[in-house]
């Protein structure tokens, strides 16, 4: 079992379009899960300008089409 939590290592914002189905600008984040595995993904529920290196995130599923579900990440609230 892999914990669905990690943090943002870095990010970038695409202004040039490379894929027909994706409208620019969009943000790609590099996430490191607590188990050490790295992933590229997209952030959900956070503006690009609010992103920070080390920001805690947790995994979620997003149905991008009826057939395709992607693993994305939203900010994680630390224990208060």
């Amino acid at each position, binding site marked *: 079992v892999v914990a669905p939590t990690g943090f943002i290592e870095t990010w970038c914002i695409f202004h040039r379009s*490379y894929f027909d189905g994706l409208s620019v600008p969009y943000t*790609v984040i590099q996430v490191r899960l607590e188990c050490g595995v790295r992933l590229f993904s997209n952030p959900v529920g956070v503006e690009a300008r609010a992103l920070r290196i080390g920001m805690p995130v947790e995994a979620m599923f997003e149905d991008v089409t009826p057939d395709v579900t992607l693993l994305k990440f939203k900010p994680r609230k630390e224990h208060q």
Partner: protein
Amino acid sequence: MIDALVIPALKGRKTMARSGSVALVGVGHTRYGKLPEYDAYDLGLWALKEALADSGLRFEDIDGLIVNRIPDYQRFCEIAGLNPSYVSTTPGQGRFSGICIETATALIRGGLATTVALVYGNNGRSGGDRYGGTGDTYGSGGGGQWFAYGMTSPGAFHALMARRHMGLYGTTADQLGAVAKTFRDHAALNPSAVMRTPFTLADYHASRYICEPLHLLDYCLINDGGVALILTSGERACDLAQPPVYVRGCGMATALTNSTFPPDDFWREPMRKAADTSFRVAGASRDDISALMIYDNFTPTVLFSLEGFGYCGEGEGGSFAAEGHLALGARYPANTSGGHLSESYMQGWALNLEAVLQIRGKCGERQVKDCAFAHYMAAAPVVTSIIYGRDPS
């Protein structure tokens, strides 16, 4: 006491080659720009003819050949009329210019060939090569699984690294802009350069983002062209048309595991290893170096390289560049041709050619004074470090 005895003895041997030394004896390049009437073979052959003319060698003197970005060695040899003893084709990745030069040096030292031609042809501009999207095979090609998230292109890979460098060390867009501006100022003095019009930092900031934080002016050019280099033993080199430029030291190191993702250390560890090896073999230090030729696919790579190859401390690349140390007339003039950002996207080849011209003293308005050593460096999953010298030892 020892120095007093040894140095005069060495000075007397300056024009004599040390056994085992290898030198660059011929360099050639095509025009750079949009050349739709030429394919990669044509461009390579054009450059090779120039390099042969430069060296005073003939086609039949070539007994080793490595082609780069040119699709097939056999077809190239058919066209050029070559039957070399050693032959090889290498992939069109920028890291391979350094690899090929180091391999040629080893071939000559090892006796597999006496005179090696390295031939590069790139018709990517006219051929419509794309560096992102579904055809993207950057690096290992392992990035395809991330296309669904829109992650693609070497530019984005370096944008991720640049953003992290900004977060960890306070590197700024102005500092990246200073790299781009400095190299453009150098290109303005280079008649061969594709982009020669100087720009201001304000122009830099006004240029559109491709993959933020990187602007258009942080990216290398995409243009057509070819470069050829000819290497031979130091003994043979002394009889040829040009003063030899010696490959004094080479180093290579890799960081290939997990390389679909940017390296945690900005390739610092392989750069340190490659630099150490090349300086040790060269018997030289950073204090001896007059000019830097830094693989500049994107501006942040220049900062990573300055740090990894030891010209400044960790995280200091941005301030080092912005303080002006890379400009002509400063301590470490870098990419005096304009580099990939402004001269020509020849994937390291034209930077090595520039190192040779600087040491020969043939760079005209952009000449570095008394350039006895130049250092070519490439930061990538395969790191290369080459120290060129005017003297054989």
